[in-house]
């Protein structure tokens, strides 16, 4: 179940697949996929099972079937590390790209992209932050920006919940502040950073296939 949110006079749709949809611009916003992270680990002698890349791409495909996307904007950290540029991972990404010829794809470069490098020759363009498209300024790192309401990634935001039986859960979330928003990390093998929202911020957690807003008292 997706959920609509009004921000900077625009409507964004938040998907539990960990992406946001800017309907007016027919643009899908995806932050921090970290493709090739598992492969990076394996190259350093740590066994991570296969499947995280193809899983993420399938998740993207499912979204592309549901909404009429003209463009995908990756908000940084598209690739995890130079070491992770295995032929297999890059091949999978290129192949996936080729199945969507009608969709433009742009990466707003992030800290990992600078080390890992771009993915030239497959039709995925890369630009430096910010990418300003009024009313938004798309960045990787969520710093404030004079040129617009910032939509960013980088943090891998997670919200803490305490449930019955003294359980503690940390869930991936969308975090909207007064001047910037942080999207959840799209990649599977990425982890969460616990956020501490300010009063007035809106937090939407992804709870078992649903996007649920945390309501302040």
């Amino acid at each position, binding site marked *: 179940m997706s959920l609509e949110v009004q921000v900077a006079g625009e409507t964004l749709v938040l998907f539990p697949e960990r992406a946001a949809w800017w309907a007016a611009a027919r643009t899908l916003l995806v932050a921090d996929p970290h493709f090739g992270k598992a492969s990076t680990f*394996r190259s350093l002698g740590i066994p991570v099972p296969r499947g995280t890349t193809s899983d993420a791409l399938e998740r993207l495909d499912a979204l592309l079937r549901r909404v009429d996307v003209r463009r995908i904007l990756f908000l940084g950290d598209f690739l995890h590390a130079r070491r992770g540029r295995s032929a297999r991972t890059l091949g999978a990404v290129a192949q996936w790209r080729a199945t969507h010829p009608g969709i433009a794809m742009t990466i707003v470069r992030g800290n990992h992209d600078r080390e890992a490098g771009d993915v030239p020759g497959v039709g995925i363009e890369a630009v430096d932050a910010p990418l300003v498209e009024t009313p938004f300024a798309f960045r990787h790192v969520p710093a404030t920006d004079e040129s617009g309401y910032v939509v960013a990634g980088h943090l891998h935001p997670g919200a803490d919940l*305490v*449930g019955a039986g003294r359980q503690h859960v940390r869930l991936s979330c969308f975090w909207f502040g007064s001047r910037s928003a942080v999207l959840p990390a799209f990649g599977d093998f990425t982890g969460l950073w616990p956020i501490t929202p300010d009063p007035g911020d809106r937090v939407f957690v992804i709870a078992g296939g649903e996007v649920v807003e945390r309501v302040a008292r």
Partner: protein
Amino acid sequence: MIDALAEWFTARGWSPFPFQREVWHAYLAGESGLVHAATGTGKTLAAWLGPIAEWIAEGRPVSSAPRRQSYVPLRVLWITPLRALAADTAAALQAPLASLAPEWSIETRTGDTSSAARARQSRRLPTALLTTPESLTILLSRPESLELMRDLRLIVVDEWHELMGTKRGVQTELALARLRAIRPTLRTWGLSATLGNLGEALDTLLGTGAATRSRIVKGETPKQITVDALLPPVIERFPWAGHLGRGMAEPVAAALEHAESSIVFTNTRRQTEEWYRSLLDIRPDWAGLIALHHGSLDRSTREWVEQALRDGRLKCVVATSSLDLGVDFSPVDRVVQIGSSKSVGRLVQRAGRSGHRPGAESRITCAPTNVLELIDLAAARDAVEADEVESRRPVERPLDVLVQHLVTVALGTGFRAEDLRAEVQRTRAFAKLTDEEWQWAIEFVASGGGALGAYPEYARVVRQEDGDYRVESDTIAKRHRLSIGTIVSDGQIAVTYQRGKPIGMVDEVFISRLKPGDRFTLAGKTLEFIRVREMQAWVRRASTSQVTVTSPWSGTRLPISGALAARIRARLDEASRGVFRGPEMNALKPVLAVQQRWSRIPAADEVLIERVRTREGHHLYVYPFEGRLVHEGLAALVAYRLSRFKPISFSIATNDYGFSLLSAEPAPIEANVMFSVEDLADDLLAALNATEMARRQFREIARVAGLIFPGIPRSGKTARQLQASSNLFFDVFQKHDPGNLLVAQAYREVMERQLESARLARTLERLSRARVAITDPPRTTPFGFPLLVDRTRDRVSSETLADRVRRMQLALERAAG
């Protein structure tokens, strides 16, 4: 040759105990064994003098190196569980050398050893090396070190009871098997406190393929142990968990008044800090005469305290289990235990810190922190008088430790699969290793794990053309040596004054929640947090002693042992029949009378269930009196089973006496289903999945198996690229590699060790046969109150209140929706 030893004793006006002579003779006859006795009764000399006598009998051989002094190559490895003990033990071993074997040298090698000393040791080892299991394992990963062990005769494992039953114990077993493969006639002697399963302890120490004969040697008759209690001045009707403590400060201080030197043992670091303060508050003139000691204090502080205690300069040290072991504090004449000791073995061990001389009497005075703990005290004394001691169960087939060992051996000598398998299976831990598990472990290090297929980019251990497995990459070698070990703690961060003086360590999670200006206690001082920089927390002395945040450590609370739990139930059974023996039970009588009037005191064949309604909702209290860990599993199980009758959410609290389930609606009570032994395995697994227990256990496994790393300083970019939590691994494995044996191990460990499923099954067995007594008390009973308070505290803790409320609100919404 024994005569030489006896003469050394005579020269000091002592004479050897018969058990010491027995160990010397057995050693010289080529035997291995296990010596058990209370601390301070001469076990060290029993193990130490045998190899000296042997060397004398061989004609005092020495090696000489060109242009260097002659020396005696390594003969004895002495393994100690605590590196803090290494220096003290070395001093004790040094004492007889001057007259018996001046050519011998003794050195230590632990995590504290300087790199210069380590470099020297990589060229030449001393005659006797004192080391920890971790440092020994690192030696095994260096082929040149193994070369220096050609003349090794004896391995002594000190405090074996501490290691057995842990993964460090398994690590030690594997190291011993490795050394025995190199030196088949090697003898092994374990030194241990008395255990309930000494035979098993010996078997675990020696493994199955030991070439030597072995025996168990009983040390000097146990010291006389007196257990007494400080009775609370006013018996409160409601035992407020932990809060009787303050009221007990005066009686404790009074008890210490006439002691020359004393140790006050607590069960947690937090309690240590609190009691140190309380004592100073009511006896300000003791400033400078009392100190505190726990594992999170800076090493130099700990060493200063230990030395001052040894010299008799301190009146009192408030300590955790950090002072349980080894070190000889002869001046100590009084020992106080704050709260329940939780196990008989621990009580005896701590009592042994007083009268630390053969034959002297040991006395321990217990101060309860809540009135119900008086039952624990009475029960513990019953067990001590009956000479009852707990057993320690050895760990079975921990594959994470095996995986680590495979890399260690590949780094050291390299290995052939079939040879190493035979060697590993000579340990008790892996005697029953299956083909599947072995194959999986090999593939896990060589190709990334069976079900995953071979990854071309993956190469931790590489199979050579000649069939040997070796580590080829220097990066992997370096990282592996840095991460050897099985102790997993939460990330710790050093706390430092602005000028750079270190104070101690606290949990990283704790620091991450602090704001500048927050005040907390460490090392008995109130500190004001400034900021975190360069992986250190910078603080200054606070101008006020008022703290704003508590407990810098997420301590795990020890559960009471099965032996003690049984004694507690026996004491309650007596009380249910109106029998109150001894001062503790009589002091407790008014409280138990309230319990009886409002509800019931369970007899031996009963299980008590109380239903209490409060503003919060419906509480179901169940009292199996089996210890907290068993109750955790039982509570999850019962909650899961009851939740199948109708949709309901429970909030769970557990302690050593029982557990409580809180729900908005009354819970269905189906006693025959709650405690049924049928479908236990399946239901427990389902209950486990409903909680986070397996996931939490996986943290340790991921670390030991080398999936995640402790913070390695200055490792730069590579380390950043490798950041992933055990949670991530757990998720990825569950999703993409469900057959992963490390995940399976997490479940097994939760079942077997954390929930003590064998004990849980026995408990269910008992409960399913017991008469169920259900009462509806007018309000929360004395038995129930600690549970009520505990849970309340868990919800409304001071500093993170705002955070917690926000989270809980969201949680409630989800539950309602």
